[in-house]
């Protein structure tokens, strides 16, 4: 028996650890550093229908125990991802979760329909929470009805289970979670970034060219844990938790809060080997906690 294996809709995970979307590109760079087959899954960078250049630079700024980013969904577009990125990833024994983004419903549908047919794409992650694009993205993520409708529309065309990625920039995240569940979501991924800003000390102007950026990293972990704790108690679909995971102990916290698997974002930049390191450390951590199988930890904060 594999103590770390977790089964989720569409996903047979060797272990519950995967890089978060946008923090791992399409895997190539990290694939030069270690064998990607070690990973539970890979959440690839957001794919839009058209090629996107993204926002002007500077696109990142450092903050206390965190960072801001406003990449703006730069990606080679659906065709590029289908032709170059996904086939390259097929050499690894790892399920791919394709992060799908767009400006309007039609875009999402187009991308979802096509990308869900790629042989290694085992699930979609519907990005309704990107704070860094002018239209679409986050507006779907802050209105329950829109979130539900988009989920339902994408579910209709997708060949694989659909996870919806929630924005933390809302008054009541439980409401959005229930809406996407009602829309037919197979799972939830959370959280995307909190909208933040950093100013240049000398000029007083925003450092990020896009003015605002998304806050990620250990700084946001308390908010992420709280939201996973809240949402896991009001929906019955599984959650892939993220937001500030930087070490093995953080994974335990997300599982305890109610997540069934965990994604690692910003920490990949600090330590490019963080995902395999955590995977290797998990068994000893389970021993320390006196737990046989990792799934026993899920939701123990509120059991």
């Amino acid at each position, binding site marked *: 028996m594999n103590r770390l294996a977790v089964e989720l809709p569409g996903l047979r995970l060797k272990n519950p650890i995967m890089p978060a979307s946008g923090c791992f590109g399409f895997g190539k760079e990290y694939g030069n550093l270690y064998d990607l087959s070690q990973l539970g899954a890979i959440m690839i960078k957001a794919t839009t229908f058209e090629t996107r250049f993204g926002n002007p630079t500077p696109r*990142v700024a450092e903050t206390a*125990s965190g960072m801001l980013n406003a990449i703006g969904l*730069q990606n080679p577009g659906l065709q590029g991802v289908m032709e170059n990125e996904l086939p390259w990833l097929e050499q690894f024994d790892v399920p791919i979760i394709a992060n799908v983004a767009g400006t309007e419903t039609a875009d999402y549908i187009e991308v979802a329909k096509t990308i869900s047919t790629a042989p290694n794409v085992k699930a979609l992650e519907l990005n309704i929470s990107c704070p860094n694009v002018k239209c679409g993205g986050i507006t779907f993520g802050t209105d329950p009805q829109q979130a539900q409708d988009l989920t339902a529309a994408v579910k209709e065309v997708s060949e694989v289970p659909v996870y919806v990625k929630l924005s933390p920039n809302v008054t009541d995240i439980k409401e959005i979670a229930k809406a996407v569940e009602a829309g037919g979501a197979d799972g939830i991924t959370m959280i995307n970034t909190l909208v933040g800003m950093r100013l240049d000390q000398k000029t007083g102007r925003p450092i990020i060219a896009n003015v605002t950026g998304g806050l990620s990293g250990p700084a946001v972990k308390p908010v992420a844990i709280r939201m996973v704790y809240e949402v896991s108690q009001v929906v019955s679909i599984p959650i892939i938790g993220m937001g500030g995971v930087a070490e093995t102990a953080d994974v335990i916290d997300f599982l305890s809060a109610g997540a069934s698997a965990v994604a690692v974002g*910003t920490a990949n*930049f600090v330590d490019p080997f963080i995902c395999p390191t955590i995977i290797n450390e998990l068994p000893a951590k389970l021993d320390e906690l006196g737990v046989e199988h990792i799934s026993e930890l899920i939701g123990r904060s509120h059991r």
Partner: protein
Amino acid sequence: MIIQDRMKVTGQRKIAKNIFELKLSGKLVGEINSPGQFVHIRVSDSFEPMLRRPISIASINDEKSEMTIIYRAEGRGTTLLSKKVEGEEVDVLGPLGNGFPVAETAEGETAVLIGGGIGVPPLYELSKQLTAKGVKCIHILGFQTADVSFYEEEFNQLGDTYIATVDGTKGVAGFVTNVMETINDDFATYYSCGPMPMLNAVQTVYAEKKGFLSFEQRMGCGIGACFACVCETTDKSDEKYVKVCSDGPVFPAGVVSI
């Protein structure tokens, strides 16, 4: 190959106002393949500061598996770095990016190396490798003021070295371009690293010449995965871009839209 190495501090000294020269040893040095590559340094084991700092490799000593970096202690991260003492370990990711092409200047030819401020360091290893292969190097180094200038002596030993300071406290008063105007232009190649406006000016003055420029951008991952460090290219046809961290930091003049 890119590796993550806990390198040992073998020396650190202040060489000008707020400018430090740090020597690090470790197996990473064996992976460096061209001058102008950089490393991504984690300055603390905590998450504050969060991100690594990109710093160019200023020189390498293969026998001792040692490299030198030169940096300005300015913000939180570099200030912490400047506190590291001999014997301490530093988490370094590298070598990163593509450096200056030494092969682009043939033996017997002349190369002009133009550096500005903390853009000067990578030119030192470049000059060492160029002169070692028989290229004549002319160095033009620009600084804000005499207090923050460094390595004049080191560059002098490799070739003619001109200093420009904005306030005239050392060398020529003015910018590197003021020196460039006085230099014989029968050279083969130029190489430059420094602030964007300087790169732009250099590129314009030497528009007819073969040149290579090293760029800076704020970085996340440093290895090409996060798209933080992109620059648009001059090829506007297809929204082309390059990543400074993995495609650069050195590009042939004219490629990156400044």
